[in-house]
């Protein structure tokens, strides 16, 4: 159950960071979109690795959920692209 939760949160965290980066004003939108699409798989793998690297049972879940919520807050506040 914990492994399933970690995988799900790792994916949500990855997607949230990707979307937040896309909504920033750094560079042009096309380049941002390409950067996000390119690095998301690597970041997904990194979050999964982190969740097993950290020795405390629930800390990876807490850290990744926190990051997801922060990004979600930013996405909510930012202007959509259409």
């Amino acid at each position, binding site marked *: 159950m914990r492994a399933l939760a970690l995988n799900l949160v790792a994916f949500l965290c990855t997607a949230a960071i990707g979307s937040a980066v896309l909504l920033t004003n750094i560079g042009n939108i096309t380049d941002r979109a*390409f950067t996000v699409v390119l690095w998301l798989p690597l970041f997904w793998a990194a979050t*999964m690795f982190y969740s097993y690297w950290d020795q405390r049972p629930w800390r990876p879940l807490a850290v990744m959920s926190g990051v997801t919520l922060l990004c979600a807050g930013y996405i909510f506040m930012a202007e959509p692209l259409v």
Partner: protein
Amino acid sequence: MNTERLKRLYDWHSIAGVVLGWFLFTVCLSGTLAVLHPEINLWADPAVRGTTHGELAEPIDVLDNYITAHEAEGELDNFFIWLPKDTQPYYQVSGRIMDADGNAEFQLDRFHAETGAPIAAKEDGLAYWVLNLHRHLMFDRTIGRALVGISGIYMMVLILTGILVHRKILREMFTVRWTRSVHLKWKDAHNALGIWTLPFSTMIAFTGAFLGVVVIVLPVVAFTAFKGDQEAAIEIIIGETSTPSGVEAPMQPALPAIRAMRSEGLNPERLGVHHWGNDNAEYHVYATTEDALVTYAEVQVNAVTGARKTLDLTSDAYPDTVSGRVLAALTPLHYGTYGGLPLKILYYALGLGLSFMVALGMLVWVERRLNGPIGNRSDAYYRTISRLNGGIMTGLGLAYAMAFYASRLADPEQVNLDLIGTVFLGTWIAAAGYALTRKDARRATVVLLGLTGIACVGLPVLDLLEGAPLTAATLTVNGLAFATGATLVTAAWRMRRRSAELPALATQLQQPGG
């Protein structure tokens, strides 16, 4: 790194490897063969082999023939013309046909290289199966690609944990204790193969993960940043698409642009025809190039005036930025399309190495639990896993070999995906069933390995017996099948001898003074 963390990573590496082992093995072995799908396509179809062509028919005349054949079926657009080449010595034309109810269907037809006349249509067969079993496991495209992509992500994590838990990489690179126990031999081979294939497997895992997960990442990005509008997301990423002007105009031939690209050292392979018959019509000529790591170099030509518009080495889908360049490189890197046949042979060897590494990891995991001190399940449970290991992994190789035979021995008119799929899955299930019902898992693996080896060695024999003309592509397929088969037969022979020696050794040890 402390011991507890190391142990956790080791446990994760072994558990994730076992849970995903059969799936990863299937993806790796299918990918190894998918690299050679154009060559396999020619091998499977001797009727078109060795066809030489002189002056090519004008592609636009070929398109005219296609349109004439299909115009009664609905509105036609989105044309792509694949130019004749060594592994496909005929034209292929694909177009989207939209019927009165708005249902779209893509139809692919073949045409003679020199005359442009329609030639007998052939249903998708062996090469399609080989390529698409790897790309989307023959499932729905989105689900299948996502599953394969996620396996790439897990592979990246497995590689990282593998590097961290194996601290003596340099020593393990050159250590295989052939005379020690089966478990040690397999473990050493797993480690050595893992290290030797490390740069390749890292690249394959990353590029494969990207190609697979992009189909699930894009909807999420579109949902959050584009209010769920996927089309808006695609438009921003690849640019706005134009619409037909509605003003009719005569089309210029496309061959001059193709010849001009050839004279510049490019190898045009595909022609996209946009807004056919309109005054804003364009030809997009896509060429492979050995000067840049891109899927295609692209030239855009005004189809009304014949004037060349652009030469874009990164193809129109990718902007000329660092990310764009890296993205353009991912597909050729993954499929090894940037260095000709020698590179494909290298990819095949490395892909087999990677597949064996995964298989050996699975074998080590079971062996440690069957004959070692660890594992908290019953012997019967581990014996079943051990039998399935042999059946599923060696059975997959046998299933591929049988699919090759089916595509050549069946009536060419009857060869289609149903036949290939039935033979492939039937053989795979039968092999797994056979292994599951045998008492001695190792002996069942030896039998299946030997059968797979013999079947592979027989493939070039079958090809030569039919007397079909040999080309570089088919010689490559034949050579690799023979080399793989000979290796598997040797491995099976050695394993059989070892299996026969073990009971004798045990008896000897039980005797007084033994």
